[in-house]
């Protein structure tokens, strides 16, 4: 057991965490980023498509290139930002403000931090169907990891379940990797992701079957096919079924915020369907009800990476400010203007209505020590 101490602990080295770390370090804070994966970058490193948004959010730049930009920023912080990869924060002990972290499979450390920014992202949801535990039923993020991080072909022919942005984008990425996409099934009567992402795969011949879902996976030891079924308006199977030739069933049926540490820390949580799970109440500085804890990105509600990066900047700026460091707090308004823009469209409507439910005024005033 080793002990580490830092000003600000950032848990999670993805879009939100890296932005938070860079921002806090630029204010002069000593920052430690703890990342459970083998490398930094989170979901960004797997994205081959160009991002939406405006120039401020690197619109038109491919996701993996944005990861590179953020990593360069971290690099420039020099010793201001220390990084632990392949390390998982396993708990928070409020009585002595200490975190425990598991490094690899069998080594543990204690981390003492004056402030924490929780940017743990999200985990993928499963849906129930017979044989959903067969090897070959993979989360969409896992498929992306295999093909876009390690260059391993995930399979020969894929059935995609879910036509949200992830299902649509990963379908496109599979085709880029030379993998056939048999179909995308979506229970709702319309695609959930950006329309242009759907049009992109449609014109390359991928069927998107609305009001359809997977009924069962076929196979003995591994996936050898699937049966899909049409759904009626109440999401009950209509009896119209067909079998699909595939060796991978990719689940893109939504994400849930990863919030265990926030719960550990006693942050006030609230279940908000629009944000896809139980998330922390927050003020305008992304501070939670525990005055030592900030949070940003998907951990605060499922949204696009472009918004996660801005939230991370806010959390980093304000956590540094709370330590009495020279933070340019006038940037807060600019960051909020960017978030408001990103959330202004029809796709952002859900997010806006969710955030209202967990936004609290007041904590911000007592920010400074």
């Amino acid at each position, binding site marked *: 057991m080793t002990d580490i101490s830092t000003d600000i602990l950032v848990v999670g080295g993805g879009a939100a965490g890296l932005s938070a770390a860079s921002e806090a370090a630029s204010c002069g804070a000593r920052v430690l980023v703890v990342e459970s994966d083998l490398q930094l970058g989170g979901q960004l490193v797997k994205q081959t498509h160009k991002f939406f948004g405006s120039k401020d959010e690197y619109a038109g730049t491919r996701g993996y290139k944005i990861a590179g930009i953020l990593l360069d920023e971290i690099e420039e912080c020099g010793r201001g930002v220390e990084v632990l990869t392949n390390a*998982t924060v396993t708990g928070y002990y409020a009585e002595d403000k200490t975190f425990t972290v598991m490094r690899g499979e069998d080594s543990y450390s204690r981390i003492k931090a004056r402030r924490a920014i929780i940017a743990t992202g999200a985990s993928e949801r499963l849906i129930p169907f017979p044989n959903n535990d067969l090897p070959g039923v993979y989360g969409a*993020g896992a498929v992306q990891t*295999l093909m876009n991080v390690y*260059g*391993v072909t995930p399979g020969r022919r894929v059935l995609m379940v879910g036509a949200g942005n992830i299902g649509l984008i990963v379908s496109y990425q599979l085709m880029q990797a030379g993998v056939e996409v048999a179909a995308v099934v979506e229970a709702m009567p319309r695609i959930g992701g950006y329309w242009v992402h759907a049009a992109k795969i449609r014109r390359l011949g991928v069927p998107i079957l609305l009001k359809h879902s997977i009924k069962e996976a076929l196979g003995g*030891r591994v996936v050898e096919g699937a049966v899909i079924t049409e759904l009626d308006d109440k999401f009950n199977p209509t009896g119209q079924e067909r079998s699909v030739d595939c060796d991978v069933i990719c689940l893109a049926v939504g994400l849930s915020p990863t919030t265990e540490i926030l719960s550990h820390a006693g942050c006030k949580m609230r279940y908000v369907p629009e944000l896809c799970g139980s998330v922390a109440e927050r003020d305008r500085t992304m501070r939670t009800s525990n005055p030592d804890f900030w949070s940003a990105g998907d951990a605060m509600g499922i949204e696009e990476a472009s918004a996660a990066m801005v939230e991370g900047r806010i959390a980093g700026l304000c956590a540094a400010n709370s330590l009495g460091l020279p933070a340019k707090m006038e940037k807060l308004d600019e960051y909020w203007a960017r978030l408001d823009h990103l959330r202004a469209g029809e796709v952002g409507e859900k997010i806006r209505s969710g955030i209202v439910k967990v936004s609290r005024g007041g904590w911000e005033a007592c920010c400074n020590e």
Partner: protein
Amino acid sequence: MELIAEHPVLDLSYFKRGEKVEFTFDGASMEGFEGAPIAAALHANGVRVYRETPNMRRPRGFFCAIGKCSSCFMVVDGVPNVRTCVTPLEAGMKVETQHGRGHARIAPILPE
């Protein structure tokens, strides 16, 4: 090996592929890239089943790839319940299918 040989956007050098090393899976010799997760190396070798569940003996494989779901637990160099999706491959590793819960190694406790 089931590897992506060309990609319209990513340069092959982008893929995290360390030096090619040998390891074994249930005694069979295989090749993989050092530093990439064990699970990815197995997948590239066509291996899909990583463990069997304790009671139902259901096959389990790769699933979440972020060290959270326990689907890819395997016995690595005699240690059970290793999260192979976030454990880097090393030369000479002995990787085995995990049957059930795995057995704890009884080893003397040494001072740190």
